[in-house]
C-alpha cells in the first residue's frame, strides 16, 4: 500500500469524532480512500502503467432547516475544522431556502466487504502484463484488424461514514470494495467499413479479485472477439422492419439501465435532474398500478448479489441495503430513491443514495438492477422466432430526456428465420418507446443465460458524477420491434 488508508486509521477517526459538531441537527463525515491500477496493452505495446491514489472527506451538516457540505483532501485537524466551519456556513445560508428540511434520522452501524477469492496482489505485476500481452497476440491476428487492446483495471475503495446529532446518537459504517474491470477490443477495417467487437462493452466487470477474470471467461474470449470483428466485415447489413428482437445479456444491461433504471429514479421524477440528465415519463401516481411490462417482467434492486458491481451493505446516507422488487409481474411497485427522495415524493424507495467519491454529495443512483430469470431456454426462445434478429453487446445508446423514445445499437447481430439462426448481420439497431416496449416482452430465458454484469461509468447529476451500477439479466425476447441496419 502506498499510503496507509485513512479508513481504519484510529487517529483520523478520533480527529473526526472530535471535530464533528454535536450541536447541530445531524452531521456526517464520509471518508473515501481509493487506489487503482490501470494496465493496457494496445497493438502489442504496453501503455504507461497508471496508479491512482485519492482520499478525502465530505462533511455534511443539517441544522436549523439548512444543509451544507464541504469536501476536502486535507485530513489534518485544522483541515477538518475548516471543512466543518464551511459546511456550517452553508447550512446557515440555505436555511429557509431548502427543498426539504428534514434532517436524516438514521445513525447506522455496520460494515461490508467485497467477497474476494483470489487477491489481486497474489498475481504478480509481471503475470498481469504477460496475460495482457498474450491477449494482445490473440487479438491482432490479421492485417485487417487495425486496432486492438487488452486491459485490466483494479480498484480498491474503502469508505467510512460517521454520523452524529444533537441528541448524542452516533453511527459508524465501514465498507471496503474491491473491483476488477477487464477489457478486450478488436477493430477491423476494409475501406469504409469498420467493425469493432469487445468483451461485453465493458459490462463484464464486478467485485472480487482475480477470480473475476474466470467468471467472464476473459482468457478464452480474445480469439472469438478478433474473429467476429473480421466476420462482421463481410456480413450483410441488419435488415430493417418490425420483427422479433432477442437481446443477449450484454445488451440487456443497457436496455435495463436506460429504460428501467433511469426512469425510476425518484430524483428525476421529482425534477432535480431536469436541467441535465432529464426527467422521467414515470410519475408518482403510477407506482402500485402501472403496467410497466408484460407479466414476465420482474425487476429487483438487489445490492446483495455476491460479486456484482454495485453490491454494498449501506448506501452513502447510511441506509441499510436489501433486495426489493421494483417491478413485480409487470407492475411498477417501487422507485429508485433514497431516504430523502422517499420523504419528498411519498413513493416507496430503496437504499440507493450514492456518491462517486468524497468530493460529490450523494444522489439517487441505480445499484444492482436485475431482470429476474424466467423459464425458457435460449434455444426455445430462438425456436419461437419466425422473423427476427438476435443482438449482442451494446455499442450505441440514445434516449430522450424523459427516458421514453430510445434508439440502441449493438456490435453483433444474428438473423433468425423460422426458428433458426441463419447468419450474422452487422450494424444491428432498434428503436422503441420505454412506456410500451417492455409490454412486448414475450420471453425471458432461464438461469443458464443469466449473467451478472455491470456498467462502470453511469453519468448523472449536477455536479456531474460517474458511478458503477450493476445489472444482471438472462436473454430476453421482445415482439414487434422496429429494427434497422447501417448505411452500407
Amino acid at each position, binding site marked *: 500500500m502506498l499510503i496507509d488508508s485513512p479508513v481504519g486509521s484510529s487517529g483520523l477517526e478520533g480527529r473526526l469524532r472530535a471535530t464533528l459538531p454535536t450541536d447541530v441537527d445531524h452531521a456526517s463525515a464520509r471518508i473515501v480512500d481509493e487506489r487503482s491500477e490501470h494496465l493496457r496493452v494496445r497493438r502489442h505495446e504496453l501503455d504507461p502503467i497508471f496508479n491512482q491514489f485519492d482520499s478525502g472527506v465530505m462533511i455534511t451538516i443539517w441544522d436549523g432547516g439548512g*444543509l451544507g457540505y464541504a469536501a476536502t483532501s486535507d485530513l489534518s485537524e485544522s483541515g477538518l475544522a475548516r471543512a466543518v466551519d464551511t459546511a456550517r456556513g452553508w447550512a446557515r445560508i440555505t436555511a429557509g431556502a431548502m427543498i426539504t428540511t428534514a434532517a436524516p434520522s438514521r445513525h447506522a452501524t455496520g460494515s461490508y466487504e467485497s467477497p474476494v477469492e483470489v487477491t489481486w496482489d497474489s498475481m504478480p505485476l509481471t503475470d498481469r502484463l504477460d496475460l495482457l500481452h498474450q491477449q494482445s497476440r490473440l487479438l491482432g491476428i490479421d492485417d485487417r484488424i*487495425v486496432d486492438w487492446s487488452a486491459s485490466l483495471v483494479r480498484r480498491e475503495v474503502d469508505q467510512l461514514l460517521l454520523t452524529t446529532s444533537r441528541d448524542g446518537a452516533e453511527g459508524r459504517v465501514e465498507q471496503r470494495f474491491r473491483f476488477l474491470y477487464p477489457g478486450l477490443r478488436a477493430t477491423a*477495417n476494409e475501406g469504409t467499413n469498420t467493425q469493432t467487437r469487445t468483451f461485453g462493452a465493458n459490462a463484464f466487470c464486478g467485485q472480487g479479485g482475480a477470480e473475476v477474470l474466470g467468471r467472464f471467461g476473459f482468457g478464452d474470449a480474445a480469439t472469438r472477439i478478433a474473429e467476429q470483428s473480421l466476420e462482421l466485415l463481410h456480413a450483410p447489413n441488419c435488415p430493417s422492419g418490425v420483427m422479433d428482437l432477442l437481446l443477449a445479456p450484454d445488451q440487456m444491461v443497457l436496455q435495463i439501465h436506460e429504460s428501467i433504471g433511469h426512469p425510476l429514479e425518484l430524483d428525476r421524477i421529482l425534477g432535480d435532474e431536469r436541467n441535465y440528465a432529464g426527467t422521467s415519463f414515470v410519475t408518482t401516481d403510477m407506482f402500485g398500478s402501472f403496467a410497466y411490462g408484460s407479466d414476465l417482467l420482474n425487476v429487483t434492486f438487489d445490492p446483495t448479489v455476491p460479486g456484482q458491481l454495485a453490491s454494498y451493505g449501506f448506501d452513502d446516507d447510511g441506509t441499510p441495503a436489501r433486495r426489493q422488487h421494483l417491478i413485480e409481474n409487470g407492475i411498477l411497485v417501487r422507485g429508485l430513491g433514497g431516504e430523502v427522495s422517499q420523504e419528498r415524493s411519498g413513493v416507496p424507495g430503496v437504499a440507493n443514495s450514492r456518491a462517486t467519491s468524497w468530493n460529490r454529495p450523494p444522489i439517487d443512483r441505480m445499484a444492482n438492477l436485475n431482470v429476474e430469470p424466467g423459464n425458457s431456454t435460449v434455444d426455445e426462445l430462438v425456436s419461437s422466432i419466425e422473423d427476427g434478429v438476435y443482438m449482442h453487446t451494446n455499442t450505441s445508446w440514445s434516449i*430522450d430526456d424523459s427516458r421514453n423514445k430510445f434508439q440502441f445499437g449493438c456490435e453483433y447481430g444474428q438473423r433468425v428465420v423460422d426458428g433458426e439462426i441463419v447468419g450474422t448481420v452487422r450494424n444491428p439497431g432498434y428503436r422503441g418507446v420505454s412506456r410500451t416496449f417492455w409490454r412486448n416482452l414475450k420471453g425471458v430465458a432461464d438461469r443458464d443465460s443469466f449473467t451478472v454484469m455491470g456498467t462502470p461509468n453511469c453519468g448523472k447529476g449536477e455536479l456531474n458524477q460517474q458511478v458503477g451500477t450493476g445489472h444482471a439479466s438472462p436473454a430476453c425476447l421482445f415482439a414487434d420491434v422496429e429494427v*434497422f441496419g447501417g448505411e452500407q
Partner: protein
Amino acid sequence: MTTVSTSTGHSDAQGYFDELVTAATSSLVGDEVLLANVAGERTDFIRLNNGDVRQAGTIDQRVLSVDLIEGRRHVAGSISLSGEHSTDEARVAALLGRLREQRAHVLDDPFLLYNTEPVSTERIESGTIPTPDAALADIRAAAAGRDLVGIYASGDTYSGFANSLGQRNWFQSATFNLDWCFYLRADKAAKNLYAGYDWDDDAFAAKIDWSAQQLAALGRDPVDLSPGEYRTFLAPRAVEQITELLSWYGAFGQRAHETRQTPLLRMLVDDIALSPLLNISEDTAGGVAPNFQTSGFVRPDRIPLVTNGIYAETLVSPRSAQEFGIATNGAGDHEQPESLAIAPGDVPNDAVNEALGTGLYVGNLWYLNFSDQAACRTTGMTRFATFWMDDGEIVAPVNVLRFDDTAFHLLGDRLEGLTDSADVLLDTSTYEQRSTSSQRLPGALVSAMRFVL
C-alpha cells in the same frame, strides 16, 4: 450584490505546486526525468430545483499526476494533495518509490515523447464573483414565481505543468456559471447559461428576460410532428451536440484516422467532403482552456481541422506522433478539441426565422450517438425549446423528436448556411473537475433533416 475577487497574481496554489515539484526533482535518481501536472479547484456549488436549494457546499480538491521516466521506460501515477507540505512531500516520495518499483517490470516505451525544450507560460484570469449568500439571493429573486432548476458554480480552477527540466506552465481562472432552465411543464423548458469572470447584475437580468420570453413562447399548445424530413435551423447549442459527438469519437484526432475509427472515415477513403461553407478549427487562442498539455507541449494558437469542407489537419498527441511518425501539435492524449470553433457564415443572426421560413427551429439536441459510426449516421433527440415555424413565425412548441441522419447531410450537402455570428459556449461539465473546454459556434440552416420517431 456582495462580491469577492479571486485569482489575482502569483497564486498560493502555483507556488505550492512549484515547491512540490522542485522538492521531487531534487530526489530524482540518475538520469530520471519527472513530468508533473496538477489540477485543482475550490468551488462553491448550489444545486436548485423549483427555485429552492437541493444541495449546497464547497469542494476543495487538488490532484498531482506524475510521469517518472528513465531512458524510454516510464510509469505514471496520481495522488490527491492535502495542501499540507510535509504530508504531500511524503506522498509524492511514496508515489515515486512505487513508480520506480514498477518501472523495473516494463520495457522501453516506443511511443514516449515529452517536451525537452522548456517553454514556461502563465495565464491567470481574475474574477469578481458573488459571495455564496449573495449569489443564492440573486438567483432565488430571479426565480421568484418560476420553476428554476439548475446548478450554480463559482470559484478558482487551476492546472499546471512542470518538469525536472525547469519548465513551468500555469493556468488559473476565477469564474462563475449558472446553468439553468425555467420549466413550464413536463419537458417544456427554456435553457440558459450565465457564465463569466465578473458578475454583472444587468447582464444577468438580460439573461433572465430572454428566458422568460422563450418561456412565454413555450406556453402554446405543443404539436406532434410525424417522422419525416423537415427544413431545420439548428441553434448553436444544437450544433454543439453534433460537434461534441464527432470530437468524442475521434473525428479530429490522428489516432482515430490512422485506425480507421473516425466517424468521418468516408472523407478519408471516399474523398467525400463536407459543405464548402464549413471551416472548423481548434482555436486555443480564442478559448478558455490551458495552452499546454500534460507532456509539456505548448499548443499553437489555431489548428485548422476542416477548411472549406475538406480535411485539413488533425490533433496529434505526443504518443500518436511517435506511433504514426508525424509531428505533435500539442493535443491531449484523447486528441479531442478543447476550444473548437466553426467560422460564422452569412445568414444574418437577427433574421434566422425569416431564413428558415417554414420548418423546425431546434434550440437544443440531446443524447447523440451513432446509428452507424463508419458512415457518420447519427441519432439524437430534440430537447427544451424546439418550435414549428411557419413563414418565419412561431406556430407552436414541438414535442420531442428523434432524428437519424448523417453529418454528411447536416454539415454537408444540405447545409444552406451558417449564421453571421458565433456564440461562445462554455462547457459546464463537472465530471471529476470543472471543465475548461468551450466551443465557438454559429447556428446552422439545413434544407432537410431526417426525423424517425
